[in-house]
């Protein structure tokens, strides 16, 4: 199970703040492809956080069970 959190315009596109994917493990690239096929996420500008740390979207990174992934649109604090 991999938890994916959505924020801002991506949460709107996914019509959800969070979902649990029934996946054991996959590469970050595969995960983003999967989410793109569901929600067309690549039309948005966003960063990815894995376990609350920003990672590069191009990075070869294995996402495993119990990881928490978040798609973060541009920050707008302040």
């Amino acid at each position, binding site marked *: 199970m991999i938890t994916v959190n959505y924020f*801002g315009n991506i949460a709107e596109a996914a019509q959800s703040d969070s979902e649990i994917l029934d996946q054991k493990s996959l590469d970050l690239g595969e995960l983003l492809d999967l989410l793109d096929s569901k929600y067309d996420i690549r039309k948005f500008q966003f960063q990815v956080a894995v376990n609350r740390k920003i990672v590069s979207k191009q990075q070869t990174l294995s996402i495993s069970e119990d990881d928490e992934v978040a798609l973060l649109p541009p*920050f*707008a604090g302040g």
Partner: protein
Amino acid sequence: MKKVFLEGAISPEFIADSIAKHQGKHSIGAHNIFLGQVRADVVGDQKVVAIEYTTYEEMANEKLHEIREAAFEKFDLTCLHIYHSLGTVKVGEICIFVFVSSPRRKQVYEATEWLVNKVKEEVPIFGKEILDNADHQWKVNS
């Protein structure tokens, strides 16, 4: 973990009360305060009437903790406080309050500027700008 996020606008009373709470700290010689106010930006023929703030709270709190620690390393500060609104803040209301205190003046200006920049750039806070025709757009810090 210090509490940063407050529901709704930050009231002038809350800010005044924060200042009053420092009167017992006699090593302080200088305070500096930054207040961010929601601006009525013009978008086409519409105006922004409010911003609805959301955050990725667990990550934001971790990031804010790192920023606080780094600020105490970098500047000679007695204390610092960061407050940010969540939920709806109307134009003219305060959405961020950064309050820096030090024995002397010079450090507080630099520290305040540094802290506000860090919050804007590194803390996952999202802002939905509500327009007067009830449409919305997502705010991007420039």
